[in-house]
């Protein structure tokens, strides 16, 4: 069997890892970075992924897709409420939501597939072998449709997804492998967009999940949004300007808020400075300011914690260890609140950004047969049921049932000669069908018989991925009944096939386009720097130097207009070299000035 990698497909960042010599390792990119921003920019010239795409967030906000995980496997009505702060357009659709990027629309699995493909390429470059199989993590509280959408994304990216594994349980595998967590443990996982709590018993190499709960729309993104709303209101008040309709400005505010939030996890105060066209916005922010904004969001994670404890039949004092996973658990308020709920200090010995990917790699190694003494027994997070008369849900499989699991149910016809039986399958905990998440509609084909005569036995099987498989058998004839599945918010088999084909066609072109755009972006950055430098420090230039720099700049601009990425790169390097001496001279002058002014300060002080 070829190598299987583990992938953490996150809301904010994604990672790929593998196991080598019994130890899980994250695979870095060529620059040594482990985290790949889960951002995809559909520029007019091609598709960018990761860091280059991040640089397009402010430049091309309507074409740069981030946090797409929040849209995976969801219907328009599910996500409508939170679309206002996305600068890109999400279009209403009866089934899978579509994101408009210029002339075309893309689905969330296609966007995620770009991130997965970038990780696949990274792993192939690092390991020097083709990678075709992966384990991908999802939030434990993801529904069937969200899991299926993730699997589809893998297929579109050219990966066979051998297992969908839950993020908190993956984290527990990483901890368990290194014997860092034993007994009854609670994994509190607050990421960029999702929240999970899982309670496990770790004993004799078996990782048995007792209960899980969560919220697939709650995470660091929501902290950022609360801060952006607050900053927008502050700007309205102090500068009399409403920036909320300005996609670029909102994007800049969001990035600044996110950065400030991260800084405030380490220090009690920070400052924001954002130059806008007509004014520069400056604002001091304290940790208390942010805590006041995010308190309701942090509190919203505590209810699911108590529910999970209750479903596990445990009290907080029966929990031996609390493990923190996900970047948002760096926020001191989160740590403090978790500590009060469980009555013990939570820990995060393994890097909370990496631990899920490491665990995915461990699960991959288990599937490959490389680890035989560990086994994960996970649960289905949501009850599965069918709609019955009057729109009531009849539960077939309750939440927190260990998977794989199955349930059997008998169906018959209500009209003479009826040849189709319709079934509506739902996931959720509410009594009425309309309050739950619609999973799929099934059409059973039956031979015409008097009403009530056919005996159709349906088997609902939830596999180890938490994904539903359905079989139907007519008991009188013993024949398999035909089933037509219409996923409510999923792609059909045909659509996925088409996307897989398209991705093969575009794969080569996409890589070329990406490299070109990266080269162009780099050229722009360097050219802009040089122009600014010439304006400020041109006087320091030696004879003939200015001419040489201007020539190199013009040459770069000419190349930049074309599509020869090697030429652009060569001329970027040439311009850098041409300005080296001048840059040093400017640096010296600046240093001398700084020293001089400090001396002046001291003279003033001593007087």
């Amino acid at each position, binding site marked *: 069997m070829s190598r299987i990698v583990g992938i953490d497909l996150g809301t904010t960042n994604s990672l790929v890892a593998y196991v080598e010599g019994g130890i899980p390792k994250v695979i870095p990119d060529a620059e040594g970075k482990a985290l790949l921003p889960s951002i995809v920019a559909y520029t007019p010239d091609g598709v960018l992924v990761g860091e280059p795409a991040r640089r397009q967030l402010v430049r091309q906000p309507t074409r740069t897709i981030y946090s797409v995980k929040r849209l995976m496997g969801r219907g328009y009505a599910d996500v409508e409420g939170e679309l206002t702060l996305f600068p890109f357009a999400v279009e209403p659709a009866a089934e899978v939501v579509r994101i408009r990027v210029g002339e075309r629309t893309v689905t969330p699995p296609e966007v995620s597939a770009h991130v997965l493909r970038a990780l696949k390429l990274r792993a192939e470059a690092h390991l020097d072998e083709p990678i075709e199989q992966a384990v991908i993590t999802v939030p434990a509280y993801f529904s069937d449709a969200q899991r299926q959408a993730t699997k589809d994304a893998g297929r579109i990216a050219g990966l066979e997804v051998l297992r969908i594994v839950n993020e908190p349980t993956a984290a527990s595998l990483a901890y368990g492998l290194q014997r860092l967590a034993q007994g009854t443990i609670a994994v509190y996982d607050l990421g960029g967009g999702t929240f999970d709590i899982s309670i496990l018993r770790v004993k004799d190499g078996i990782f048995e999940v007792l209960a899980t709960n969560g919220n697939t729309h709650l995470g660091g993104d929501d902290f950022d949004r609360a801060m952006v709303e607050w900053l927008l209101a502050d700007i309205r008040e102090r500068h009399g300007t409403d920036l909320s309709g300005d996609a670029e400005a909102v994007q800049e505010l969001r990035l600044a808020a996110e950065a400030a939030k991260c800084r405030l996890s380490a220090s009690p105060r920070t400052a924001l400075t954002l130059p806008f066209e007509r004014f520069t916005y400056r604002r001091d922010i304290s940790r208390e300011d942010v805590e006041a904004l995010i308190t309701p969001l942090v509190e919203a994670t505590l209810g699911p914690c108590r529910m999970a404890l*209750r479903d596990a*039949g445990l009290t907080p004092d029966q929990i031996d260890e609390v493990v923190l996973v996900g970047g948002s658990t760096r926020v001191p308020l989160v740590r403090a609140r978790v500590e009060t709920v469980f009555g013990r200090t939570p820990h995060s010995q393994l890097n909370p950004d990496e631990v899920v990917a490491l665990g995915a790699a461990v699960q991959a190694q*288990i599937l490959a047969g490389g680890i035989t003494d560990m086994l994960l027994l996970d649960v289905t997070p949501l009850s599965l049921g069918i709609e019955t008369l009057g729109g009531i849900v009849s539960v077939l499989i309750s939440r927190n049932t260990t998977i*794989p*699991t199955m349930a*059997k149910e008998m169906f018959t016809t209500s009209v003479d000669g009826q040849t189709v039986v319709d079934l509506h399958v739902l996931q959720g905990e509410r009594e009425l069908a309309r309050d739950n998440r619609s999973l799929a509609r099934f059409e059973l084909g039956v031979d015409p018989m008097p009403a009530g005569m056919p005996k159709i036995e349906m088997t609902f099987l939830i*596999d180890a991925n938490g994904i539903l498989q359905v079989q139907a058998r007519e008991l009188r004839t013993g024949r398999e009944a035909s089933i037509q599945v219409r996923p409510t918010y999923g792609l059909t088999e045909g659509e996925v096939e088409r996307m897989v084909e398209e991705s093969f066609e575009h794969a080569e072109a996409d890589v070329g386009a990406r490299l070109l755009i990266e080269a162009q972006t780099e050229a722009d950055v360097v050219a802009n720097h040089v122009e600014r430098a010439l304006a400020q420090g041109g006087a320091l230039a030696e004879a003939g130097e200015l001419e040489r720099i201007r020539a190199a700049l013009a040459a770069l601009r000419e190349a930049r207009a074309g599509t020869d990425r090697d030429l652009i790169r060569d001329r970027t390097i040439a311009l850098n070299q041409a300005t080296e001496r001048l840059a040093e001279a400017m640096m010296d002058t600046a240093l001398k000035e700084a020293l001089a002014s400090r001396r002046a300060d001291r003279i003033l002080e001593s007087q």
Partner: protein
Amino acid sequence: MTRDQDYFAVFELPRKLAVDGDALQRRFYELSRRHHPDFHQGASAEAQGEALATSALVNRAYRALRDPLARVEYLVALESGGAPGDESKGKPRPPMDLLEEMMEVQEGLMEARAAGLGADERARLTESRRHLAERYQAEEAAIVGRFGDWDRAAAGERGALVAWFKERLAARAYLRTVIDDLGEALGEDTETHVAHRRH
């Protein structure tokens, strides 16, 4: 292991209600290690399908047997001719000795739904709920209290015992529904009613 085995047979246990929880868990881990799809990844499609089905059966069997009340519910379904995988809970029926109180509670609930709760009514429903919750615990204790009778019963006595278990389970199910309805009407979390489930 065959897919038609009952849950007791899956764990090679006699059809008795006294079960050693630790031994059951050890056996569950053993069976999981043998049948879980994770360890059959390289096998043929057929063998993988078999592992999936067997593993699903083991998981369902463990879920039904590890908890005493789920265990007796399963036993009743099994003795009444229910197929494996079909753990029917029995139709909820009010306990006969509580019929009068139940009528009052249901009336109070209907009024509360129609016109909201006054302070008096709230106090009365809260008291009812406390009383019914106690009764619920008592029903469970009574049911578990007769596990030994079943385990010692001669073949001829079993029918009557199954009927008794069925009746008490139906009363318990009814109480559960009313307690939940009361909790909802009172706008309270039902969290206080954590029972049994796991150890």
